C-alpha cells in the first residue's frame, strides 16, 4: 500500500512537478550532506533549517523531523523538505518519505501561511496555486521569519491585506483581492482529484438526523469528516490516506468548522425546530447585533459577530443538567464484595455528571487519580497504603536528614525550602481567607462587593483545616512539597504546585496518601511546570485551535488583537482553575476533570466555554490583550461552574474528533509520551 502512495501521488500535477524538479535538485538521501558539490550545476542553497517537523497525527511518536531548504536554481526558487533518515518513529521510512517535499517551485506556490504563537512552535503552511496545501511545517528551532525573509530576496511575495500572517506569492494582479486563508484549504484538499463541487454547502447531507445524546460524539466526528460529499474512491486507499492526512494537517480547516456548525444547525433545525436562522451558506456573515443574554449587562459598544454555534441553544440541547453528587449508598453499588469497582467507566460517567459527596472523596479521588487501581480490592489498597507510607517516609527522610551544616553548602535545597515555605504560608492564608469570604457569602453578604481575590474555599470544616499559626496542616503541605521535590528532583518545586496540593491534602487528611495522590496528579500535570513550559505551550496552542474550531469570529477577534497566544488563560490551565472558583467548587471541578469521561482535555473546553460566555463583552468592548488579561483575572469567583460545565460538555461533544485533533499529543493532562527523561535537567532548576 505504501508503494502505491508514492506512485499515486505522482500522477497529481503538483507532485509530478515536484518530482521532476526534485530530480534536478537533490534526493532525500542527500539530506545529511548539502555541500554544493552534491548539487546540480547552477543550484545554490540559500536557506537550510534543521528540525523542521511534520506532525502526521496527534501522536508525538509519529512526528517526522526533517530539514527544510530553499534552493535557488536560475530564476527559480525551490522548496524542499526531507525527512531525516533513521529516526525513532512509529512510522516506517516509507511512510515518512511520503511527506517529502521535493523541489517545489515557488512559481507554483500561491501563499504561505505563517503561525507564530507566542507559546508553541511556529509553523507554516504552504499552499499551492492548485489549492493543494502541504502539511504544516513546525519550526522546532524557530526561524520562520528568516525563512520568509530569504524567500523575499528571491521571489515576489506580499503580505495579505486581510491577514498579516498570510504571504501571497506571485500575486501580481491584485494583492489585495485574494487572501489565501484556510478558507481555501478544504477545497484545496478536495481539489486533489476529487469532485470539489459537491461540497460544503450541500443542503441535504445524509446525516441530518437530530443528535440528542452525548453518546454520539464519535459519530458526530466521523460524520463531519465526509459530511455532504462523496467519499473518496474506495479502491484507492492511498489517495484516501493522503487526503485524510492533509485534512488532519490543515488542522482546523474551514471545512471542518463549517461541517461541524452545519451539522449542528441541521440537528437543531430538524430535531428541534428552534432555530429561526436557517443558513446553509458556508460563509455566512451575519453581523446583526443580537441582544445579549449574558448575565453581564455591560454596555456593548460594538456589534458582535454572532456565535456560529448558536451557543445558548447548543447548551440547552446537549449540556446535561448536573446531578446530585454520588452518595454512599450509590457508591456501594459500584463495588463488589471485596471492594473492586465493577464498572469503572460507568462510575466515571456518574461522577462526570454529578461529582462525589465530600466524605467519599478520600476513597474516590485515590482511584480517579490512579493512585489505586479500579480493580483493586479493599485489602490490596490497604496493603498498598502501608507500603507507600514506608516509601514516603524514606523519601522524606532524605531531606530531613540534611543537617544545618550540610544545608549551608546545599544552595538548591535551601532555595527550594525557602520558596516552598513562602508559598505554603500564602497558600494557606489564601485558602483561609477565602473560607472566611465564603462564610460571609453563606450569610448572604452580597458576593460581588468582595474583591474576587478573596473569594475562594468554603465549608466549615475547611475553615479550621488550615487555620491558626501552629496548624499542623501547614507543615504537612510544606513537608509533602519538599518531599516531592526530592522524589522528582529534576522538576523540583514550582509556584502553583501548592495550589494543586492543598485540596488534595484537605481531602485525604493523610500525609503519605496526599503525597502519592499528588504524585499521580503530577504525572499528568508535571509538564505544566517544566522549565521550557512545553506543557503550557501545547495546552495554549490546543486552546487556540479549539476556539478557532468552535468560535471562528472570536478566534478572528483574538487574531486581530494579537491575543492568539491565549496567555490570558495561563492561570486557568496551570493550576486547573484552582484560583477561579471557591474551594468546594474547585474540588467538584477537579473530580469531573479526572474522570476523563468524554475527553482527557475537558479543561480546555471549559476554557472555551468561559470565553464563549463572555465573548460579547470581550468583542463588544473591544478588549485588547491587557484589558482581556485583567478581565479574565478578575472573573475569579464570578464564574458559574455548573453552567460552564454543561457548556463545556456540549462543546466537547460538538467538536468530536475535530476537537481532539486540535490537541497535540501528550498535551497535559495526557500522560507524557516519551517516558525516558521527563524533566530534562536544567541548571537553574529550583
Amino acid at each position, binding site marked *: 500500500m505504501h508503494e502505491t502512495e508514492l506512485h499515486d501521488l505522482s500522477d497529481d500535477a503538483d507532485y509530478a512537478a515536484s518530482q521532476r524538479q526534485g530530480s534536478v535538485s537533490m534526493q532525500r538521501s542527500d539530506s545529511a550532506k548539502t555541500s554544493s558539490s552534491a548539487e546540480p550545476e547552477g543550484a545554490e542553497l540559500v536557506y537550510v533549517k534543521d528540525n523542521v517537523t511534520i506532525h502526521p497525527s496527534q501522536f508525538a511518536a509519529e512526528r517526522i523531523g526533517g530539514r527544510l531548504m530553499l534552493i535557488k536554481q536560475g530564476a527559480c526558487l525551490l522548496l524542499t523538505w526531507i525527512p531525516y533518515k533513521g529516526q525513532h518513529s512509529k512510522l516506517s521510512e516509507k511512510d515518512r518519505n511520503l511527506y517529502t517535499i521535493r523541489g517545489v517551485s515557488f512559481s507554483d506556490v500561491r501563499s504561505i501561511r505563517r503561525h507564530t504563537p507566542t507559546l508553541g512552535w511556529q509553523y507554516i503552511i504552504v499552499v499551492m496555486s492548485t489549492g493543494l496545501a502541504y502539511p504544516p511545517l513546525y519550526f522546532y528551532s*524557530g526561524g520562520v521569519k528568516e525563512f520568509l525573509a530569504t524567500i523575499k530576496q528571491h521571489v515576489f511575495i506580499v503580505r495579505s491585506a486581510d491577514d498579516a500572517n498570510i504571504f501571497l506569492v506571485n500575486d501580481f494582479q491584485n494583492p489585495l483581492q485574494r487572501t489565501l486563508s484556510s478558507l481555501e484549504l478544504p477545497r484545496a484538499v478536495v481539489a486533489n482529484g476529487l469532485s470539489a463541487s459537491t461540497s460544503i454547502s450541500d443542503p441535504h447531507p445524509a446525516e441530518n438526523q437530530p443528535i440528542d445524546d452525548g453518546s454520539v460524539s464519535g459519530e458526530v466526528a466521523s460524520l463531519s469528516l465526509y459530511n455532504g460529499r462523496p467519499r473518496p474512491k474506495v479502491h484507492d486507499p492511498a489517495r484516501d490516506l493522503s487526503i485524510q492526512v492533509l485534512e488532519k494537517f490543515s488542522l482546523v480547516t474551514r471545512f471542518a468548522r463549517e461541517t461541524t456548525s452545519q451539522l449542528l444547525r441541521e440537528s437543531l433545525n430538524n430535531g428541534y425546530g428552534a432555530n429561526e436562522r436557517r443558513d446553509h451558506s458556508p460563509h455566512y456573515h451575519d453581523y446583526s447585533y443580537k441582544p445579549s443574554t449574558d448575565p453581564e449587562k455591560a454596555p456593548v459598544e460594538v456589534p458582535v459577530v454572532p456565535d456560529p454555534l448558536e451557543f445558548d441553544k447548543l447548551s440547552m440541547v446537549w449540556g446535561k443538567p448536573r446531578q446530585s453528587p454520588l452518595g454512599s449508598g450509590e457508591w456501594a453499588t459500584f463495588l463488589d464484595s471485596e471492594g473492586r469497582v465493577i464498572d469503572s467507566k460507568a462510575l466515571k460517567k456518574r461522577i462526570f455528571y454529578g461529582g462525589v459527596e465530600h466524605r467519599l472523596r478520600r476513597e474516590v479521588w485515590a482511584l480517579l487519580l490512579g493512585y489505586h487501581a479500579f480493580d483493586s480490592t479493599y485489602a490490596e489498597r490497604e496493603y498498598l497504603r502501608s507500603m507507600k507510607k514506608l516509601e514516603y517516609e524514606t523519601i522524606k527522610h532524605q531531606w530531613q536528614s540534611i543537617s544545618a551544616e550540610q544545608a549551608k553548602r546545599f544552595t538548591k535545597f535551601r532555595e527550594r525550602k525557602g520558596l516552598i515555605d513562602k*508559598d505554603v504560608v500564602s497558600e494557606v492564608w489564601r485558602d483561609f481567607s477565602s473560607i472566611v469570604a465564603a462564610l460571609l457569602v453563606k450569610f448572604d453578604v452580597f458576593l460581588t462587593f468582595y474583591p474576587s*481575590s478573596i473569594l475562594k474555599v468554603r465549608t466549615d470544616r475547611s475553615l479550621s483545616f488550615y487555620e491558626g499559626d501552629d496548624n499542623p496542616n501547614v507543615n504537612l503541605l510544606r513537608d509533602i512539597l519538599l518531599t516531592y521535590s526530592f522524589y522528582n528532583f529534576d522538576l523540583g518545586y514550582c509556584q*502553583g504546585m501548592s495550589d494543586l496540593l492543598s485540596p488534595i491534602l484537605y481531602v485525604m487528611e493523610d500525609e503519605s496518601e496526599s503525597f502519592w495522590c499528588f504524585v499521580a496528579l503530577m504525572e499528568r500535570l508535571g509538564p505544566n511546570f517544566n522549565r521550557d513550559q512545553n506543557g503550557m505551550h501545547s495546552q495554549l496552542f490546543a486552546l487556540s485551535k479549539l476556539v478557532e474550531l468552535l468560535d471562528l469570529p472570536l478566534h478572528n477577534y483574538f487574531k486581530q488583537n*494579537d491575543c492568539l497566544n491565549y496567555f490570558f488563560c495561563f492561570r486557568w490551565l*496551570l493550576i486547573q482553575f484552582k484560583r477561579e472558583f471557591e474551594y468546594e467548587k474547585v474540588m467538584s471541578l477537579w473530580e469531573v476533570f479526572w474522570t476523563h469521561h468524554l475527553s482527557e482535555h475537558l479543561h480546555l473546553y471549559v476554557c472555551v466555554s468561559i470565553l464563549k460566555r463572555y465573548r460579547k463583552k470581550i468583542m463588544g468592548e473591544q478588549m485588547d490583550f491587557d484589558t482581556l488579561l485583567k478581565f479574565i483575572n478578575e472573573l475569579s469567583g464570578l464564574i458559574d461552574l455548573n453552567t460552564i460545565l454543561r457548556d463545556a460538555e456540549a462543546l466537547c461533544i460538538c467538536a468530536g474528533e475535530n476537537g481532539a485533533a486540535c490537541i497535540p499529543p501528550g498535551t497535559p493532562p495526557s500522560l507524557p509520551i516519551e517516558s525516558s527523561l521527563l524533566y530534562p535537567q536544567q541548571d537553574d532548576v529550583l
Partner: protein
Amino acid sequence: MATSGNKNINAKLVLLGDVGAGKSSLVLRFVKGQFVEFQESTIGAAFFSQTLAVNDATVKFEIWDTAGQERYHSLAPMYYRGAAAAIIVYDMTNLASFERAKKWVQELQAQGNPNMVMALAGNKADLLDARKVTAEEAQTYAQEHGLFFMETSAKTAANVNDIFYEIAKRLPRAQPAPNPSGMVLMDRPAERTAAASCCS
C-alpha cells in the same frame, strides 16, 4: 480619566524581581491602597492600571506584575517588551533577591527598550532589623547602572507612591510614537523577542 489641557501619557510599566520580593504587594498598595500580609504568588501575570497626575501631565500607568520564579523567566520578555518603565524589586532582607535584581537590570539593559525608565526598589523597608542589603550598596549600584533607587515598604506604604511618581516625572514627555498597546508580538520587524520567548 485625564483633565483637559494636560498632556496625557500612557506608560507601560513592568515589575520584575525575585520570588517574594513584594512586586504584587507594591502594585496593590499603589493601585488599591491595600496590603495583604500573605500575598498569594502570582501565576502568569497580572495587569493593573493607575493614573497619576504630575506637574504637566497625566500619566496612566499600565502595570504588568509578573511571576517571580526563575521557572517562568522565559515569559518575561512578553511583558517588558515595549515597556516605558520598569521597577526592579528586591527584598532588602534577602541578599539573593538583590543579586537577582541585578540580573534583571542586566537583561533589561541588553534586551529592553533603550529609553526605559528603570527604578530599583528595595522593598520591605519596614523590616529594618532583618536588613541584609544596605541602602548605600544599592544606591551605588543604581547610580552605576543609570537607575534611580528607593527603599519602599508596601506594608507601611513608605515611598510606594513616590517611586511611581518619580517614574512618571522621568518619562520622556514627547513620546515618539505611542506604545503599541498590549503586546504586539507577531509582526514587529527586527525580531529579537520571538526567539527569546519560546519555541526551543
